[in-house]
Each structure stands twice: as structure tokens, then as C-alpha cells.
């Protein structure tokens, strides 16, 4: 849009976001995740040297929404694909955008090894405690007792174990430089999340190593809630299981 007094704009849609209506459900915080990344790409001026790696999940179409070169990985393999790109183009900014089924279930080996190698990539990990794309089955991150399409009686920890806390797990490795967890359920947390996303890109730009930001996210559709309820559920149910905070921050990042 053309503006007569541009200096009056307090907030405007990031340039790095493509001007299209997304396929995400109303209120799905995947959109928020995309927005934060786009804002950071704008602020850091990375648009022309960034390569995004979309994963298989509801965010499969991330490549349609963020205005940088993009590839679409196989389910769970985004970190391996990003490794392939970063190794041949070390001066580019390479990030993956992955859901919890993608990263914590089928993609466990690839994320652990990318982190252990200290691969110089940025991973934005959206944890919504469920498989959204396929219609709401249990993820490794699903909460105890949570009813999903593949845990109709509620997740039974006796047979399926407790939720996997990826940030804590990866922080147990020597490789990573920056591992934190934030949430997208309210303005204050979204602002913190934005800072973390920016740091995660700066870590890469400064060549400090592997950076991952876990973002607690909503899936109103498969949780069977309206968007506001979903945000409240994140605060009430998810945050206690997935404490927000910094799990690994090497010297020199802050």
C-alpha cells in the first residue's frame, strides 16, 4: 500500500511475507511463527541470502509464504537437507521450519545429529503437541492424557511414554550453540519469541553454530478449541510440561 506519511507506521506486514492468504486455520499460530521469521529477515536484511527449508506438516507450504529461496524437505529430514545446503553454501543463511511430529518423531535422528555436529543452521521448531496436517494424531510431544485421533482414550504414558522435551534433550549435546523454548500464546511471549528467533538467526550469521528455537504453538482445529481457548490451553497445560527458558546458550551469544 502507498503511504503518504510512512513515518506514521507503527507496524506493517513484513516485506518478507508473500502477499497471499495462507491455508492455515484461523488463529493457528503457525502464522505467527512465519511472521516472526519474516520480521527478522526484514530487520537483518537477509532476504537475498537466505534459503528456507520447509518440512512436512501443516507448514508444508511455508515456501509459499516467506519470500526467500525455499526448498521442501522429506518428512523429518529438513535438518539433513539444510546440512546439504549449508555445506556447499556456507555464507548463506539456512533455516528449517519444522513441526513436532516432523522434528521429534520421524526426524529425531536428523535433528540430533545436526545438533551434535554443530551444523551452522537455524531451526525454528513449532511444538503444537499434535500432528496437525494428518488430522490430529498423537505426537511424541502430546501431553499425558491428551485425547488425539490415535490416542482416543488419552495418551497413556505407560505404553507411549512421557512427552519428549526436545530443547532439554538437545541441550544435553555438546554440539549446539543456542537452544531455547518460547511460546506464541500471548503478546508478551510472542515478543520474547521474536527476540529468540532473531538471536537464532544472528548465531548463524555470526558463525557461532547450531541454533534452535522451540515455539509452543496452537492447533485450534485438532484440539477442538477456538483460537483464544487454544492460547489459554498452551499457557495452562503446555507451559508446565514444556517450561519456557534458555537451555543452552554458549559464551558470547548474549
Amino acid at each position, binding site marked *: 500500500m502507498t503511504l503518504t506519511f510512512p513515518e506514521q507506521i507503527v507496524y506493517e506486514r513484513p516485506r518478507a511475507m508473500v502477499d497471499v492468504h495462507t*491455508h492455515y*486455520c484461523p488463529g493457528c499460530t503457525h502464522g505467527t511463527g512465519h511472521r516472526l521469521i519474516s520480521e527478522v529477515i526484514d530487520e537483518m536484511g537477509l532476504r537475498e541470502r537466505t534459503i528456507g527449508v520447509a518440512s512436512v506438516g501443516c507448514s508444508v507450504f511455508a515456501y509459499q509464504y516467506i519470500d526467500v529461496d525455499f526448498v521442501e524437505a522429506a518428512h523429518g529430514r529438513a535438518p539433513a537437507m539444510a546440512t546439504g545446503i549449508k555445506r556447499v553454501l556456507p555464507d548463506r543463511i539456512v533455516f528449517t521450519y519444522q513441526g513436532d511430529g516432523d522434528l521429534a518423531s520421524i526426524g529425531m535422528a536428523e535433528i540430533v545429529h545436526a545438533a551434535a555436529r554443530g551444523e551452522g543452521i537455524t531451526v525454528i521448531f513449532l511444538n503444537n503437541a499434535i500432528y496437525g496436517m494428518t488430522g490430529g494424531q498423537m505426537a511424541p510431544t502430546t501431553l499425558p492424557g491428551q485425547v488425539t485421533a490415535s490416542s482416543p482414550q488419552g495418551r497413556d504414558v505407560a505404553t507411549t511414554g512421557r512427552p519428549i522435551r526436545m530443547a532439554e534433550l538437545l541441550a544435553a549435546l555438546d554440539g549446539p550453540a543456542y537452544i531455547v523454548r518460547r511460546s506464541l500464546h500471548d503478546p508478551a511471549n510472542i515478543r520474547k519469541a521474536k527476540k529468540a528467533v532473531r538471536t537464532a538467526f544472528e548465531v548463524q550469521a555470526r558463525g557461532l553454530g547450531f541454533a534452535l528455537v522451540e515455539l509452543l504453538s496452537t492447533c485450534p482445529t485438532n484440539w477442538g478449541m477456538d483460537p483464544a481457548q487454544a492460547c489459554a490451553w498452551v499457557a495452562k497445560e503446555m507451559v508446565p510440561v514444556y517450561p519456557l527458558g534458555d537451555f543452552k546458550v554458549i559464551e558470547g551469544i548474549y
Partner: protein
Amino acid sequence: MQNEIIIAGFGGQGVLFAGQILAYAAMESGKHVTWFPSYGPEMRGGTANCTVIISDEEIGAPLVRNPTAILAMNLPSLSKFEPLLKPGGTLVVNTTLVDRPVERDDIEVVAIPATGLAETLGGKRLANMVMLGALLAKLPVLLPEALKAALENHLPERHRHLLDVNMEALEEGQAQCLAIHMPVP
């Protein structure tokens, strides 16, 4: 003798369920029947549709290019399917959500404010039954009783309390249809 019916609308309008009720009714009337949905994430937020084929003999292709009847519950559905309807076929339009006239003149049109009527009967969600009722009035592929029996037997437990209003919606659809539909000259 084979009838191919496409029911299309917004995700929340219960088009898949309407198709299933039709299929149950056909099955219980001893006919061959197939129900084929649009599926997967492309449905998310967007539109949904299903194809119900009712036949006296074993059914071959579960999809047809030119169906014999279409229930268009919103504008996008009308735009998408009107051109495909077989000449002489039946088009039921939910005029509450469709603000333009039908374009073709080689088909039978039933224009009915289904969503509007549904609201008077107890809620938008009943529009699908109103449309079904209207269809049967125009195209007697099945006996209304069969549809009612299907509703009786297959309305999910959690909606049991809505059985009566669903029945009324069906009847209202039929009644209105005979009254209001405008055959093309």
C-alpha cells in the same frame, strides 16, 4: 438406471454427512451406492464436496465428470459445479448464500433459501437436510421414508437430540421445493 449426485459447500455445512445419509438410505433401499469425498488438507478452511452414486447395478467409476444432480450450498460450489451438471440434470441451489442467478437454461433448477429456512427451524447446520429434502422432491431417486429411516439409524449419538429438527428440515425442504422451484421455460 444410475443417479450421480454431488453435494458441495463450505467445510462446516455438513455436506459429507448429507451425502452419507443419502448413501445409507440408498443402501437400505437395496440399491448399489458409492460415497466419495474430497479429502485431505486442501479441505482445511475451504470447501468440501462428495459424490454419491446410486444405481441398480454394480457401480463402476466412483467419480463422474457430469453428474445428474448437484446440491450447491454456497457460491464457490455453484461456480465450480454448475458447468458440469448433465444437461437436463437437477441443480439445487442454497439461495441464502448464493446471490446470483443460475446461468444454464438446459437444466432443472431448485432455488431454495436453505440456510434461511434452517435458521427458522433451529440452526444453519440443518441447511444440508433442507437441501436433501428439496432434491428428493424434485428427483425421486429414493423414498423420503428411506431418508428418514437413515437419519433415524445413523445420526451420531451426540446429535440424537437433533433428530426431530433434522426430520422437519427434510420435510420443509420437500414442501418448499414443490412450492418454490422455478422450472425453466
